[in-house]
């Protein structure tokens, strides 16, 4: 780590390229390297002296496919009189063959399940791909469940994931570029985009940022997400994590870029804007009018979920005049036995709900369900009976918790739940004005936020009416003629417009 100068710490945190690579230092020779690796017990070096020219085969037993070794490699090695590696290369029926003397490269390949053949003590080796990957089978997406539409989710195997995506877009311009990241994990990361549609500038930004990453381990693509984001201090997700292949396909087609990482069942999509966090991909399978209606409901529920309990605190603490007299009577009588001020009451219930959620997420799914019911019903009723909270608040809290789960993007759900707490505190100290000031802060933050340099609040601000066809509502596909300006795509048109003239000339009763 660099020594931080004394001045602005926070600015430093942003400015310093924490994860940028340092130049590579020391070169190892092949023999040193082999000796180093042989400290692992699954590392095999088998030296055969009986053949015409003695050879050594080198591999990690734990990650190669023994069946292939016995069927394709060993017989050939013994059959031919090996004069050179080139000759051997032509005989062995495996695709990925390579001759090199680069120790670093050899080490890398060995770690990835390659087998190396070395003749006598030649510095060249023949590398062949015998890697064996074990992975679970394809399964339906669990986080982003949908009733309609394909039930195909990504899995932890990169090859399978790439296969799933390319099968959905058999387009010659679909590009997949590989980057290896992680000094320890050496994770393969694939950047996918459609050339011509995705803006070159965005692709370059993503590639550049990926290549600059210097970190030890990339356990999941969400690691990358946090390192790639424009503002990592923000609580708002600037990339979408998804496991749905249809969602990936849709975004690729608009001009977004998808990032896959080996061993991760989530893909990252970017750039995104705030509106896309409200989009469930099921919206595209329902009719446009119904989908739009539910999108608006979802938007409303997000707002409600964030402000409902803060409003309760503000109004009950400062502005009870806001309630009509009849409602007031109900509220006061429900609160009349409660010993706490509203903010304590609300925090108590909110934290209870979050506890339930956390506990439910950590438990095996069957226990989790029971926990939810037990927590919801037993704790809720008991709290009301014991006069710790008012039953009206219980309804509000439960509703806003429910509303927060309508968000289709999981990371956004967390953001919503998080935002509530500061808002409750502000509501307690300055009532409605506190809520307004904090909302202003969030608004300014959102205005300033970008995702790969594209404004986060687009198409609302900067306002682009042309992009609105698929934002807070969704117009029919006929009206989605152009790709959103947001992605800065060059190929704007999605299909040719054929109907315009014909439609106007028809009258009623004319077909």
């Amino acid at each position, binding site marked *: 780590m660099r020594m931080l100068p004394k001045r602005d710490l*926070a600015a430093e945190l942003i400015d310093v390229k924490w994860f940028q690579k340092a130049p590579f230092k020391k070169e190892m020779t092949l023999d040193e390297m082999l000796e180093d690796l042989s400290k692992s017990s699954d590392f095999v070096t088998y030296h055969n002296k009986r053949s015409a020219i003695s050879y050594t085969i080198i591999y990690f037993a734990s990650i190669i496919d023994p069946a292939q070794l016995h069927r394709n490699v060993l017989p050939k090695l013994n059959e031919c009189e090996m004069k050179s590696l080139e000759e051997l290369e032509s005989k062995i029926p495996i695709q990925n063959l390579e001759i090199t003397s680069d120790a670093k490269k050899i080490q890398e390949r060995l770690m990835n399940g390659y087998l190396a053949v070395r003749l006598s003590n030649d510095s060249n080796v023949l590398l062949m791909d015998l890697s064996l990957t074990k992975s679970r089978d394809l399964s339906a997406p669990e986080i982003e469940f949908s009733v309609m539409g394909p039930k195909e989710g990504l899995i932890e195997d990169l090859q399978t994931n790439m296969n799933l995506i390319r099968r959905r877009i058999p387009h010659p311009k679909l590009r997949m570029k590989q980057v290896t990241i992680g000094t320890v994990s050496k994770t393969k990361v694939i950047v996918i985009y459609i050339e011509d549609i995705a803006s070159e500038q965005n692709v370059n930004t993503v590639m550049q940022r990926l290549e600059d990453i210097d970190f030890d381990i990339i356990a999941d693509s969400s690691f990358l997400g946090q390192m790639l984001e424009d503002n990592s201090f923000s609580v708002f997700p600037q990339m979408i994590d998804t496991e749905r292949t249809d969602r990936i396909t849709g975004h690729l087609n608009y001009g977004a870029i998808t990032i896959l990482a080996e061993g991760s069942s989530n893909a990252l999509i970017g750039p995104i804007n705030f509106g896309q966090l409200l989009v469930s991909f099921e919206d595209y399978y329902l009719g446009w009018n119904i989908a739009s209606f539910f999108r608006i409901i979802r938007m409303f529920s997000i707002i409600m979920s964030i402000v409902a309990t803060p409003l309760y605190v503000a*109004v009950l603490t400062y502005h*009870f*005049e806001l309630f009509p*007299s009849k409602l007031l*009577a109900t*509220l006061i009588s429900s*609160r009349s036995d409660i010993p706490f001020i509203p903010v304590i009451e609300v925090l108590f219930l909110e934290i209870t709900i979050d506890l339930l959620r956390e506990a439910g997420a950590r438990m095996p799914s069957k226990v989790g369900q029971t926990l939810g019911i037990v927590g919801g019903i037993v704790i809720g009723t008991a709290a009301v009976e014991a006069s710790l909270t008012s039953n009206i608040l219980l309804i509000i809290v439960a509703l806003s918790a429910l509303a927060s789960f309508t968000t289709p993007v999981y990371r956004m759900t967390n953001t919503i739940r998080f935002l509530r707490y500061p808002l409750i505190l502000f509501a307690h*100290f300055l*009532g409605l004005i506190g809520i307004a000031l904090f909302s202003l802060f969030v608004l300014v933050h959102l205005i300033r936020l970008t995702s790969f340099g594209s404004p986060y609040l687009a198409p609302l601000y900067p306002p682009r009416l042309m992009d609105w066809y698929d934002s807070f509502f969704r117009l029919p596909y006929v009206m989605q003629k152009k790709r959103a300006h947001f992605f800065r795509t060059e190929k704007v048109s999605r299909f040719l417009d054929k109907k315009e003239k014909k439609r106007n000339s028809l009258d009623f009763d004319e077909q």
Partner: protein
Amino acid sequence: MKKRLAVSLMLCLLLTSCVSTEIIDEVPVVFIAGFDKGSEGKIKGTISLQRFKPNQEVETRTFQAEAHTSKGLRNKLSGVPKPITIGKMAVMLFGEEEAEKGVLRVLDSFLRDPASGRLMYIGVVEGSAGDLITEEFEYLQGIGPFLQILIRQSIEYGNMPQNNLHLFDYKYYGKGMDPYMPLLKKNEDEIIVSGLALFKGEKMVGELDLEEMFMFTLINKNHKAGLFEVALSDGNFATLHKVKSHVDYTIDNGNTSPEVSIKVDIKANIAQYTGDKLDDKIKKMIAKEFEEKIQKDSLKLIKKFQDLQIDPLALGDRARSQTRQFNFSNWEDQYTGLDIKIKPTVGILESGIID
């Protein structure tokens, strides 16, 4: 550094609670207040607090105190937990004596206080307002909400002209008009609306009974009134309902010798008729007799206003709106002697589902 400073400042702010709270179940909520003339020129104030119990029951308690100002009353009300909030006050009542002395010394503090609503109903009680509030009626929600509903229904479905704190204030300050308030009365074990209290400026100077109030409502503004019983010359009675009036005031020569003519167009349905058969002839007769009644009664009403030198019909204001460079002092000189014509027309729309 800047960010850290900002964060610590914010924390400071949050840790020091900066304003005093008014937590909903801790502040006493006043729904109704009454003001009477007290001793030595003081105001005697009576408030009624609602206490809501967890089982949705309501308990009402009343308090009384005397002071020179209505704000001062709040201090004097010992025995009531502070701060007393008037934010939800729905009804304000004045005793007759206090109303005759002038209501502004009380109203001023309510108009000045941003917490008070302007849709609050105000009314005059025949006798003492304090006695009415302290009286134990058997209203489920307490007297405050009951009176609020009573007055609101009378305005919406009954024969009472629209009125509230704002409109009183409007007419009090407006030139060429005078305010009024509903007049309430205790009748055995219930409260009834007994008419309209007329004000000259801030002082009550007269009153209208229920029938006069109906006439007033009909000719004052476009209004959808409630029921009215017409006594016919043949001894039968007809009840009109959904009486809708459309008024049109024409005032000529506002600055010289004003001529006022009021066209009242009334549409009504017949709800009941005590005679045998209700045919077209009888309908016409009912309409005709109703017209005559309006003609006679409203002229009497206007005469009454002129004698009291008040203008609840806002004739002065209507004259202003129809006259360029209107001269108010000239109008006021001539008002009491004005000749005012009324032309009512009554149309019967429906007469129910039988003849």
